[in-house]
């Protein structure tokens, strides 16, 4: 027992220190570019690129692509969020390499199989992808960055995300505990 507590202390960064560092990163993003962090926007860029490459004519007329074009001129992949997410992959990899956490694995509760975990991850991803477009941003883009600039929408989205997850937690407890 004593040993596991010791491991717990050293394995990850203290959450408050992590939080302050993340806040500084967010502050830097706002200072440099006047906007917060984000993730789902990069996926949207990629989808728009694929759609306009495969079916240029029909996709340009869709409201989704039009709405994207209004706010992003030029190549959809040459946007702030795409570069930022490439950085996330590099940063996460570097951190994992330093901490010795690089390993291919499926993480799940011992009560469920890997296959079930993967199906749930896919389902969760679809829901999150859809929700992030409807809610104009994910936990980082809308909730976290929105809260930092005191956006009303950011607070509402944050409460909706965490409130729903809390409310549904009981039904999914076997997957995690």
């Amino acid at each position, binding site marked *: 027992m004593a040993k596991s507590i010791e491991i717990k202390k050293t394995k990850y960064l203290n959450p408050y220190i992590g939080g302050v560092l993340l806040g500084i990163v967010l502050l830097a993003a706002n200072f440099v570019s006047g906007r917060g962090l984000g993730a789902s926007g990069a996926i949207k860029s990629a989808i728009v690129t694929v759609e306009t490459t495969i079916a240029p004519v029909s996709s340009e007329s869709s409201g989704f692509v039009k709405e994207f074009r209004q*706010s992003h001129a030029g190549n959809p992949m040459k946007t*702030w*969020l795409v570069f930022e997410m490439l950085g996330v992959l590099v940063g996460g990899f570097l951190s994992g390499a330093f901490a010795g956490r690089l390993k291919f694995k499926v993480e799940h509760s011992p009560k469920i199989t890997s296959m079930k975990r993967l199906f749930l991850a896919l389902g969760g991803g679809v829901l999150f992808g859809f929700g*992030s477009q409807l809610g104009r941003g994910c936990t*980082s*883009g*809308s909730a976290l960055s929105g809260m930092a600039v005191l956006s009303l929408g950011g607070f509402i989205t944050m409460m909706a995300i965490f409130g729903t997850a809390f409310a549904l937690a009981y039904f999914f407890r076997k997957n995690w505990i």
Partner: protein
Amino acid sequence: MKPLRLLALFIIPMGLIIAAVPQNKTKPYKLTAEQLLGEVNTRTQYLTPDAVADMIIKKDPTLRLIDVRSQDEFEKFNLQGAINIPVTDLLSEKYADILNQDGKMNVFYSNGTLTANEAWMVTRQLGYNNNFVLEGGLNYWFDAILNPNKPASTSPDEEFAKYDFRKSAGAALGGGSAIQPSQDQSTVSAKPAITAGIKKKKAAGGC
């Protein structure tokens, strides 16, 4: 428990300080006084009545005439298609999108040039582009466009060309007697190009 106390020790005093100090609402000027003086000296903000009349007649979609006089004066007389933004309400939030944009050419006018120039100075110092002043104001507009004086017979050809244009423009804009439209409009000053402003980039964002 210790890290939480440490965090609280930092953020509570910082929160109290930020709650106690007044909010910084000053909008920093985008142009220094020297830059503005430079622009004033080169008179870049002026558009001649001929250029404006030409744009009205050609129904140039980028032109937006802005009457900076009071609402009363605006209702008594205004130029075709003009909107009214009294200079007293210039900084009102509802006009910000009209004044700070990069798609149109805003032309301020008043009776003389004084009020229009005041409006131009304020918006220019805030860094807004594409705002201009009608040279000579409405008074000169009447003289030049609606009641042009026939130049003396000894005048150079350009003067006559200008007169023809003004005469026809005046007719098209309601005033004077109609004559044949002038073929030569080379005297009409070239209109300045619309420059991209700061506004467009601000819209970037979203996740």
